[in-house]
């Protein structure tokens, strides 16, 4: 019995210790002006993390937009309010679905790739040899990936929203017969740029920070074996997903819950 409590306590201390390590890690990696070479490293990571995630984000966005319109129509039509489809699709996407789903997809695709890549570099002693040559691996390997994640995910979220709204248009207007004017007009009068688009972007930026941070930290901190890498990639996806969903609730309550 006592042993269980002690074990729990030890686990708790481990968690705190890991949090502390990851905080220091973030501080050391993210600070510092990138050099000219650092600029190119960032660009490269933007490609791997951002450009290569475009496909999954856009396809998912399209389908989610279309499903939203389809489901939304069937519900709204009972109230005779199907002309409000535009604002329903837009608000759902901009406020909630785009930031959250894009972040979850990003964590699964780019986050796990980041963890695996950095973990493999650790396991093959590339990070150590970099240090021995006199280069700080945090600056050269981790920082470009962190900054690429910070920038790429918000951009991907924008893409998700745009294509989702378009998908909703395809289903709602082209297929189900909602008036084109109502779709866009209702949207335009209900969607506030600062309130809805802006808050959605803020959410996305917060998620970008958390997901990328978790991904690179898990890669950097893992046990350098094959099993260690596989466990770390799993942790990245799981922790990122939980963090995104939890933070989403908090942010939604603050932004849209009407509490000041």
């Amino acid at each position: 019995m006592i042993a269980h409590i002690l074990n729990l306590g030890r686990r708790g201390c481990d968690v705190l210790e890991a949090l502390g390590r990851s905080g220091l890690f973030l501080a050391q990696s993210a600070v510092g002006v990138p050099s000219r070479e650092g600029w190119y490293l960032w660009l490269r990571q933007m490609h791997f993390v951002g450009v290569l995630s475009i496909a999954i984000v856009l396809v998912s966005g399209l389908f989610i937009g279309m499903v939203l319109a389809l489901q939304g129509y069937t519900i709204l039509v009972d109230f005779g309010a199907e002309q409000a489809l535009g604002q329903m699709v837009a608000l759902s996407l901009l406020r909630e679905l785009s930031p959250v789903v894009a972040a979850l997809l990003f964590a699964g695709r780019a986050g796990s790739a980041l963890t695996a890549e950095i973990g493999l570099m650790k396991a093959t002693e590339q990070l150590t040899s970099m240090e021995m040559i006199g280069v700080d691996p945090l600056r050269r390997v981790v920082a470009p990936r962190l900054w690429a994640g910070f920038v790429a995910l918000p951009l991907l979220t924008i893409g998700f929203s745009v294509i989702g709204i378009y998908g909703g248009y395809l289903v709602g207007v082209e297929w189900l017969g909602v008036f084109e004017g109502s779709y866009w007009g209702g949207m335009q009068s209900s969607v506030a740029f600062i309130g809805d688009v802006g808050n959605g972007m803020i959410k996305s930026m917060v998620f970008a920070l958390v997901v990328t941070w978790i991904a690179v930290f898990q890669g950097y901190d893992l046990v350098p074996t094959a099993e260690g890498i596989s466990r770390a990639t799993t942790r990245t996806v799981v922790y990122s997903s939980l963090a995104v969903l939890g933070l989403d609730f908090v942010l939604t309550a603050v932004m849209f819950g009407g509490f000041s």
Partner: protein
Amino acid sequence: MKRSKTMELGVGLFMLAGILGLLFLGLRVSGLTFDMPGDTFRLEANFANIGSLKPRARVTMSGVTVGRVTAIELDRDWYDARVILELDAELEGKLARDTTAAILTAGLLGEQYIGLTVGGDPEMLVNGDTIRDTQSALVLEELIQQFVSNMVSD
């Protein structure tokens, strides 16, 4: 350091697409407009009940958008709602003094906007004037109450 032109191009396009997407969201989706400051003139109108009228709501005449609601405040002298309108400068001095402003609803559950109807007064409204003749928003509950009390009295 090998520089891949295609990669740089790809990332550049990605970022450009993001910025364009943001523009799209701003203009097409949330209806941001660029109001040029010199091209509007200001009118005020007081309403007993503004319903769900919001700032940035449209102001129309015969269904054509001619301006926007810029602010809604509580009038401390008359204890009703004072709505500030910005209208196209072209209409300055063209609207009669007895022009009516009514709060209308687009569709059954749509957004509320202000519809102007011209009057016949020879005197015109200028910048800063107040529209005297106003019609408040129809509040559903009051309508129902009216309807019910009418039915009862029959």
